[in-house]
């Protein structure tokens, strides 16, 4: 049973992959086509119910809800992608460096990491955007910064395990430098773990972007964002619950899809789960 599971994504993983794929396709399509201009207002036609012209109705300014949801997918994915990229781009090298160097450098990086973990991520993101001013770029910075320690920690943990493997020892005996070993041997061996982690962080980043936009700290009008759609729909809950339910569903579906995909990928890619299903992760990584 374990044998089959690790070879494929599994049912849940496939559902996750399909959902994520669908959201990405919608976001890509929105680059070239949406039923209406998502920012075009038509006050005379506000709060209209679903119709042929507006399959999901319109909001309080008469903007087409379907077009807004599509454009919102694009913004969510773009912000999260850049933010996670930023986190991985800084965190992975830091983790590799810490694992390769050990000693005081490792200590310094990891203690800084602990420090960053001590601050609640979303609250600090709120602080950063409050200081730098609201906007998509600052939201990316805020979310990205809080991905750095996550990636640094995961990378270091996985890399340390690889450093103990015989082929790394062989490479060291052959006289290769730590940097080369990190890039040629360690990184490829922990790539699976990192991809899984990136998927999960991506889901969290989408939530964080929606949360910041909901609080008015994320992307600003006329740019569309699921979080801001939720916020704007708040006072219309009794009048047009559809306006809150649709972006809420979009967030839920996207995040759920990414989480399922992450789980599936993890079963397939994480080298710490061997085909016999025995957990050989180092003791430190087993908590949680």
């Amino acid at each position, binding site marked *: 049973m374990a044998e089959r599971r690790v070879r494929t994504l599994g049912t849940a993983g496939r559902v996750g992959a399909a959902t994520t794929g669908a959201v990405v396709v919608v976001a890509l399509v929105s680059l070239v086509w949406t039923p209406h201009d998502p920012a075009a207002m038509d006050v005379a036609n506000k709060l209209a119910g679903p119709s042929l012209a507006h399959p999901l109705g319109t909001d309080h300014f008469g903007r087409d809800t379907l077009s807004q949801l599509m454009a919102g997918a694009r913004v969510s994915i773009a912000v999260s992608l850049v933010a996670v990229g930023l986190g991985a781009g800084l965190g992975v090298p830091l983790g590799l460096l810490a694992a390769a160097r050990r000693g005081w450098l490792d200590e310094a990086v990891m203690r800084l990491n602990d420090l960053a973990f001590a601050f609640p991520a979303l609250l600090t993101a709120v602080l950063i955007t409050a200081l730098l001013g609201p906007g998509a770029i600052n939201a990316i910075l805020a979310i990205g910064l809080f991905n750095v320690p996550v990636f640094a920690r995961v990378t270091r943990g996985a890399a340390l395990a690889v450093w103990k493997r015989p082929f790394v020892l062989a490479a060291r005996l052959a006289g290769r430098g730590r940097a080369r070993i990190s890039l040629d041997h360690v990184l490829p061996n922990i790539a699976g773990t990192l991809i899984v982690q990136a998927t999960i962080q991506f889901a969290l980043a989408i939530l964080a972007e929606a949360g910041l936009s909901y609080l008015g700290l994320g992307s600003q009008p006329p740019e569309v964002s699921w979080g801001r759609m939720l916020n704007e729909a*708040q*006072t219309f809950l009794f009048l047009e619950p559809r306006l809150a339910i649709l972006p809420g569903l979009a967030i839920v579906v996207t995040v759920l899809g990414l989480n399922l995909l992450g789980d599936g990928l993890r079963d397939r890619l994480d080298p710490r789960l061997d085909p016999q299903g025995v957990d050989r992760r180092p003791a430190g990584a087993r908590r*949680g």
Partner: protein
Amino acid sequence: MVLPLPRARRRAATALAALAVAALTALPGPATAGPPDTLVMGMVLEPPHLDPTAGAAAAIDEVVYANVFEGLTRIGPDGSVQPALAERWEISDDGLTYTFHLRRDVTFHDGTAFTADDAVFSLQRALADDSVNAQKGLFAAIDSVAALDGYTLVVGLSRPEGRLLYNLGWGDAVMVGLESADTNKTRPIGTGPFRFVRWVQGDRVELEAFPDFWGPAPALSAATFRFIPDPAAALAAMLAGDVDAYANFPAPEGLAILEEDARFAVVVGTTEGETILALNHRRPPLDDPRVRRAIGHAIDRNTLIDGAMFGYGTPIGSHFAPHHPAYVDLTDRSPHDPERARALLAEAGIAPGDLRLTLHLPPPSYARRSGELIAAQLGAVGVAVEIIPVEWAQWLDQAFRGHDFDMTIVAHTEPLDIDIYARDDYYFGYDNPAFDALMATLQSTRDTAARADLYRQAQTILAEDAVNGFLFQLAKLGVWDARLSGLWRDSPVQANDLTGVSWQP
């Protein structure tokens, strides 16, 4: 299947998910009616403190005016001047001496008697060089204040002031006690029908009936002002019966629901709130009247009222309240005409897409929603707008005091405040000596017809100069329990006068 993630991260994720769907779960609770002699009044903003003579915040007056504090005169529900702590008065023929006869049976909430000495103290405190009064202009004409005897006050003016009796009815001119003035910010002591009980910061202010009030005892035994900044929460609180009345309901979109519900009365009245798109004249090209006119022509007021205010509001073409007798409708000076807007911009040498302006938006929905619509309307004539949402503190700091803005939307809620356009170094930076001279003439004119004529001229100058984008007059959206009577329909001053409020059986 559990991921090697720190637990706190996942908990943060859960909290975020909860946040994302929180909007879906705000459902009304069971309706409960309050006891028939107390009142819970909802307000959007919490006052910074409770001394109306030391702050400009409207929320202060909305709690204490006519309830806790009274002045020599007061403004009635229709905007007229009525006697309050001064029973009657005489004005000398030259208009320079006012003699006020004070009520003899008035006591402060701390038990001390109100006499002419307190009145002299109150006015001198407002007039003093170190006065922190937010509306010192109200008292500018006053030259001397003296007590003739314990209950007679003589006020001497340096020039005739047509609005003195009206000015003395403002919340900023209320009478305070010699003994208690210093602590009014946290423990207000006035002469009104209600005395202060306690203030739970961030939540509510409680008042109770004052047994030794000089006038007829109010029908309510106690009143609570609750501060609910979120419009969605305001609607939920109203539907749930947690709040009995909102004098200024913050969510116009919710009125349709409340109107259908027989438990509530929806009363739409007028306010003194001219909502304007303020333009910073210090920043080129906004110093060019053609550019300002172009902005005026780009704006479609009816769309703003419909889209941002759900139809509640009256278009204005200058800085003046439409319900005032001296009002002139000048909206035809800046009709919605995108073609003309483009032509004017071209005339000013601005190519489409060349002009980028920032738009600072304070939190109220009238500003945020109008702002989004205006950004789209200006975009249609080739002016790119960057929206910058700000909190009130930031707005006061950056836009109002720091003059660091291109455009901003705000409602000026003081009555008859057209004279702000004559102020030196006011935030939008308008400077027109002809207008200043007109305001000076107005100040010394007492004849009503002559004053009305001057007001008309002033309105026309502002419309001709296209000083700001004049948008609409805010409507007062009152919502309260249908069994309540005595709340004001209009708001000629910022006040929630509870003196005459009662529950009908």
